[in-house]
């Protein structure tokens, strides 16, 4: 069976393609790109006026299954992913049980194959139970299908443990994704340390707590030769450290998400727990540094840190409410509105940072429309306008600081391995 995406503007940064053409998909793989109007197939989708791009990939997502299905599960999380234009997500290991054994990796992959609307690549936990001491059976995790290793949500504090973890990962060539936080400096903190935290009387998380951990992890990556990926960059300091590390030839990459360039800690005013995440929203200066880092390529890719929490968990005292916000469904429009329409990135660069580069960082299938590659495709409608509201969020949870915002841009539909997913 073949599928033709007809007359769309095909943008594939991996092949430097940007033209109106037909994309031909055969048996779940891309078979080629032909002149507009010439493609013939069993199923034809007219993409006139739409952008046809390699499927967007979010390498930083919390799907909450197993263990926290009341927040999100693989079914709802991948539905949110598809609605946001993502054809693949990498899910973080802080589940219950955590993703620290091959069995859990396999369970997630199987479940995603049964109920998923997007591909799911589990990320293994660096330490057992994510407790920060004994290493997980990393070789086993990788052979079961883990796409990377991470300490997200439970950052390794002991430098020796991190060194050994990196060494162990390095020998398998697997990327280690780190949440960068020196918790001695953040203990009890609930928001960025600054004027807002002073006025609100909320214990602060200083920016240096991220910078110091980033500096340590970069130095350990240099020492061990590990592939390091910096999760959710929130500070100007991290951007500068990453820039310098790249100039020094250290194997390190980094990501940031829309809230870190579109919002500041002003959003927490009124004790808005839907603006509470870790690392926290920072300052305009950090926004600018992150935007500059995205523009000059210091920050390699865009990822959401999609972190669902149930309403009753967020409806708590600010310091007690859990960290984390949704991201999958607002990421593309926020990128389009705040980076593309403002001229920071071209649309091609944005697609590169949301698809081709994430695939390259973790060596995932997709991220390209080259013949023979998996037919993971995102069809984007740049004229789509919509308002973020509880009833049009596909995630089980509703914790987004963008509630009520007008969005421009979104997915018309996605194709995963040749199968079409159309948002409701």
């Amino acid at each position: 069976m073949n599928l033709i995406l007809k007359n769309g503007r095909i943008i594939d940064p991996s092949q430097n393609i940007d033209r109106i053409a037909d994309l031909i998909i055969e048996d779940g793989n891309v078979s080629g790109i032909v002149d507009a109007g010439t493609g013939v197939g069993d199923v034809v989708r007219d993409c006139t006026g739409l952008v046809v791009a390699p499927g967007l990939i979010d390498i930083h997502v919390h799907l909450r299954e197993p263990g926290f299905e009341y927040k999100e599960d693989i079914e709802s999380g991948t539905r949110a992913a598809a609605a946001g234009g993502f054809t693949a997500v990498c899910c973080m290991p802080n589940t219950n049980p955590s993703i620290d054994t091959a069995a859990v990796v396999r369970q997630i992959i199987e479940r995603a194959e049964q109920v998923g609307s997007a591909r799911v690549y589990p990320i293994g936990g660096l330490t057992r139970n994510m407790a920060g001491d004994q290493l997980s059976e990393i070789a086993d995790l990788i052979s079961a299908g883990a796409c990377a290793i991470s300490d997200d949500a439970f950052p390794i504090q002991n430098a020796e443990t991190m060194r050994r973890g990196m060494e162990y990962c390095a020998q398998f060539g697997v990327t280690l994704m780190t949440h960068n936080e020196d918790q001695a400096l953040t203990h009890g903190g609930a928001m960025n340390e600054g004027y807002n935290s002073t006025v609100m009387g909320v214990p602060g998380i200083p920016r240096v707590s991220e910078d110091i951990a980033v500096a340590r992890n970069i130095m350990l990556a240099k020492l061990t030769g590990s592939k390091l990926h910096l999760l959710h960059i929130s500070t100007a300091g991290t951007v500068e450290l990453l820039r310098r590390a790249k100039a020094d030839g250290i194997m390190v990459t980094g990501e940031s998400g829309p809230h870190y360039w579109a919002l500041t800690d002003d959003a927490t005013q009124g004790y808005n727990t839907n603006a509470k995440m870790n690392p926290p929203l920072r300052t305009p200066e950090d926004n600018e540094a992150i935007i500059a880092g995205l523009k000059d390529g210091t920050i390699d890719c865009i990822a959401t840190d999609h972190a669902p929490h149930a309403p009753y968990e967020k409806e708590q005292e600010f310091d007690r409410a859990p960290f984390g916000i949704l991201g999958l469904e607002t990421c593309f429009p926020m990128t389009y509105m705040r980076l593309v329409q403002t001229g920071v990135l071209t649309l091609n660069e944005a697609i590169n940072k949301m698809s081709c580069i994430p695939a390259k960082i973790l060596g995932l299938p997709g991220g390209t429309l080259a013949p023979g590659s998996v037919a993971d495709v995102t069809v984007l409608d740049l004229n789509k306008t919509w308002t973020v509201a509880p009833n049009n969020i596909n995630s089980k949870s509703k914790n987004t600081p963008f509630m009520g915002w007008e969005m421009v841009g979104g997915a018309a539909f996605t194709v995963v391995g040749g199968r079409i997913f159309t948002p409701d």
Partner: protein
Amino acid sequence: MKDLLGLQQTDISDIRRILETASNFKEILARPVKKVPTLRGRSMITLFYESSTRTRTSFELAAKIMSAEAINIAVAQSSISKGESLKDTLRTLQSLTADCVVIRHPSSGAAEMAAEYADIPIINAGDGRHEHPTQGLLDILTIWQHKVVGREDETYPGVINPNRPFDLTGLTVAIIGDLAHSRVARSNVWGLTKLGAKVRWCGPKTLVPVECERLPITLTHSLEEAMTGADVVMVLRLQLERQEKGLLPSLREYCKIWGVTPKSLQVAKPDVLVMHPGPMNRGIEISADVADGVGGIRAAIEDQVTNGVAVRMACLYLLMGGGSGDDE
């Protein structure tokens, strides 16, 4: 005004209205029989998640003087200790037909959150490090009575310039101590500066919150600088565990550098007024001589406590609709 959550968000007109009402109520406190029927049939619930003697007792007394029912919830013995959320607790108290909830909570923002989930008035009796508005108001009333009215006449109606009641222009208030953890210091900054006073903050750098220079204050780490020419010195309580948390080398050194003593007061105005929100650590942040007003030092610490009752009566009266005239 539905709630009293903090002086940052309270209009200056509402601040003046509370102070004026409190000034008038002070007369009731001077009577031999302290009881008026104003809030008969109303009920106030105090919901304290932190221990407190003076604030809770002050609210309770204020309610009882005005004939309102005062019900205290001891959090440790309630369903809250079984894990009930603040939201559910507030909804329950509202369904029990309480007319007002006075809340103290260790989390900053808890009072604002309570107000969001309840339709009945919420009074913030201290939320984390954020605000303690009735303390700020009683401090302002005390300063006004001592420094502007110029006499301790408890029947004084509390208005000098009818166009600008409670104007504190020209006064300098130095707040000394653990500013980082102090809700009292924050409420006072907003209240005092709205009424025209100048505020100085002074404390060790480890106990000063970041970027506080952006508040309407002058910051110094030198006690002498803070004291020089001050009309009022407000001394904050030093929590003894600050030393254990590594924020101070020793209480001894704190006392030596930032302790308020007769000697350190010498550079202030001769008629400087010393205040403390209590409870005091004598011999640490404030010397016993200063606390007791020995040697002509003017300390208003007991007046603060009395004014606290009047201010809380005013808040309950204004928020529980005592002024609407529909109660008799």
